[in-house]
């Protein structure tokens, strides 16, 4: 050592040692930067993956709701925390159901008092040899409350090896065609002074008579062709920030909102689902062939439904008729439009409106009779006919909601063919009130004339002008426009704005999937925090 120190080669050695030290320092600095960058990118990658996992589980739940709109009421999802019934009216009050099992369908309130294990969906597993890549999820479900049809979900997604968690809240709700005040497959024209509160969609032209009072719209309007171009007509005034979308370029591009025109043909699948649920899923199935337990020995030519509320129970009295009358100007089908009130009816029975609110009738369906009225006590949809055998709905009385229009009761009236108003339904007061979301899948909403679709009307006129009043409160989806103006001097088309978020049971949807609302990434809920919330 002493010799080496004395040797001049020691300088070189020191220089080499210093050089190596400098190199090591530089390498360490660069390596630290690279490691930091790597960890940053890995953290980001996991963060992105975790949020994607939460989104995937949201999509999965939405898909389940599309198939079974009451999925949340029927099942505790595999990724859900153990669900505890807190509904005092339920026979299962205080009981808990583990994830992946059937729920107590009559229990409408619940909470999640105990924690659970994260659910590892197979599609959210990472590489088989890296457990840390697996995404686990846990969720809680809040059923629709008040006037909202949406199911609220809170989903926590985690890569537990790294302790990274993210939480997403969203409301999944159906985008029903009942959200439109008017959904018409062809041209639609409004008279002077129309004041429209709901959205309008027309498959052709949309026009408003500007004389003497220009119409007003309070919600967006959509026309596949033009708005206000027809001679003698014009556009409406736009209130509350309402905007117009058309297909000819005068306004915003309708394709920016609806990539494809709405097609009534797309509703048939949803309508068939109503039939299936009514006859095989706990609904009320009014069909001789599909429901032998009704005890019918021959097939009725028409059915009459008299909805009423007894105490707190919503019921429907069902009658059948075997009349098959024709006249010189009425076919057997047309006869019902005018004469449902004086047909011979045989009582079949009185039934509770089912919990799912779905009623299917396989024949022409008359809603009550003049003077009796129809009181709806819970969310209900009545569907008449099918794609292979289209049938009409005949409105023969006022239709009202037992709890008014501030509750959650809404009615869907769906005719696979057309919706007709029996002119005798307008009583001595000269007023007809209809509260419902209406869909005439094959035709229009019309008032019957003396000879079905021709001749005069039995409704009163004064000096050639009709004097009766029609009040509708709901929504109207019709393939063709009718001639209601020829029969009612005053037509007050009101929009039940609850329908913007409240859907009659299984009413057809705009598309295949449910939509999200209030999608927001949020703080971890207490049950997902290791230390809780104190």
């Amino acid at each position, binding site marked *: 050592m*002493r010799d080496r120190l*004395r040797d*001049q080669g020691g*300088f*070189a050695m020191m*220089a080499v040692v*210093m*050089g190596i030290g*400098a*190199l090591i320092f*530089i390498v360490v*600095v*660069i390596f630290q*930067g*690279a490691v*930091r*960058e790597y960890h*940053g990118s890995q953290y*980001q990658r996991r*963060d992105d993956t975790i949020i994607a996992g939460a*989104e995937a589980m949201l999509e999965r739940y939405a898909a389940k709701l599309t198939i079974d709109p009451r999925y949340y009421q029927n099942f505790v999802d595999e990724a859900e925390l153990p669900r505890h019934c807190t509904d005092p009216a339920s026979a299962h009050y205080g009981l808990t159901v583990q994830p992946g099992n059937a729920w107590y369908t009559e229990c409408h309130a619940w909470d999640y008092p105990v924690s659970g294990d994260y659910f590892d969906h197979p599609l959210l597993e990472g590489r088989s040899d890296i457990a840390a890549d697996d995404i686990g999820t846990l969720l809680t479900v809040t059923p629709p409350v008040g006037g909202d049809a949406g199911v609220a979900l809170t989903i926590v997604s985690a890569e537990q090896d790294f302790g990274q968690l993210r939480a997403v809240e*969203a409301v999944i709700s159906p985008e029903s065609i009942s959200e439109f005040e008017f959904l018409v497959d062809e041209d639609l024209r409004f008279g002077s002074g129309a004041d429209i509160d709901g959205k309008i969609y027309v498959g052709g032209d949309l026009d408003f008579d500007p004389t003497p009072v220009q119409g007003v719209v*309070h*919600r*967006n309007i959509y026309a596949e062709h033009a708005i206000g171009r027809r001679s003698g007509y014009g556009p409406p005034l736009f*209130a*509350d*920030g*309402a*905007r117009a*979308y058309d297909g000819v370029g005068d306004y*915003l*591009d309708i*394709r*920016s*909102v609806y*990539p*494809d025109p709405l097609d009534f043909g797309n509703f048939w699948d949803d309508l068939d689902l109503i039939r299936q649920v009514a006859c095989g899923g706990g609904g009320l199935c009014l069909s001789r062939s599909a429901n032998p337990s009704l005890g019918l020995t021959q097939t009725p030519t028409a059915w009459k439904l008299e909805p009423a509320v007894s105490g707190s129970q919503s019921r429907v009295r069902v009658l059948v008729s075997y009349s098959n009358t024709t006249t010189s100007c009425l076919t057997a089908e047309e006869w019902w439009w005018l004469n449902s009130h004086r047909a011979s009816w045989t009582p079949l029975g009185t039934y509770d409106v089912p919990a799912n609110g779905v009623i299917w009738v396989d024949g022409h369906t008359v809603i009550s009779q003049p003077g009796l009225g129809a009181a709806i006590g819970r969310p209900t949809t009545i569907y008449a006919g099918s794609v292979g055998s289209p049938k009409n709905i005949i409105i023969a009385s006022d239709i009202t909601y037992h709890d008014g229009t501030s509750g959650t009761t809404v009615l869907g009236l769906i005719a696979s063919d057309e919706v007709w108003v029996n002119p005798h339904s307008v009583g001595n007061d000269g007023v007809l009130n209809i509260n419902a979301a209406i869909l005439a899948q094959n035709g229009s909403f019309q008032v019957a004339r003396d000879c079905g679709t021709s001749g005069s009307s039995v409704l009163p006129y004064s000096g050639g002008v009709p004097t009766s009043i029609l009040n509708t409160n709901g929504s109207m989806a019709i393939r063709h426009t009718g001639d209601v103006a020829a029969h009612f001097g005053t037509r007050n088309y009101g929009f039940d704005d609850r329908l*913007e978020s409240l859907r009659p049971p299984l009413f057809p949807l705009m598309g295949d999937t449910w939509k*999200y*609302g*209030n*999608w*927001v*990434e*949020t*703080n971890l809920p207490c049950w997902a925090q290791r230390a809780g919330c104190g």
Partner: protein
Amino acid sequence: MIRRIARALRDDRGFSLVELSVALMLSSMVVGTFVTMFFSFSQNAADVTGRADSQEQAREVLVEMVVEIRQAVAPGPNSDPIATMTADGITFYTTEIGSAAPVKVAYQRTACDHGECELHRQRYASNGITQGTYTFSGTPFEQSLLLTGVLADVPLFSGGRWSGNPKTLSTVTSCNGTSVSCAFPLVSITLRSYPANTSEGARTPFEMQEQVRLRNA
């Protein structure tokens, strides 16, 4: 051992001037080379670190932007979540945790000089509801300079929607909600920026891209 040390101490022979000069010259060259290498490596390390820091900062901005746009909400029943969009800016309404009312957020690429710009964000609080639609203050409650050195050579924002049959993705370059609809479900963000705190030679731009699906649109 003691004798050896004593002999070494007695040996007073030194280096000659020539030897010393050559040794100094050689060692100076060696030290100079290493010093140069050290500073070069240090600069490279600083450049790498500066670039990484800039990318991390840009990524944080991008992540925040993505979260805000992803959960954008319409302020009223007749509105869209996005109010306006150009290649340089986007204004939209988004949810804020703990608040029922949305906030209006505007990102703007501005103050450009020789192709390099600043990215600013302004946030406006809601000041009420008129006919079912939230209204917003004209004065931002927060103004932030998020990034500098942002390049203006590519659109920072663009929109996308699917249309036709079969569906194809078409690009929306700008919208104002009045003559051009802002109803689209996708927003693309392309952020090109020079890194800050790097040497001139290492100043090459980096690029980050995100495509955001508006969940509430």
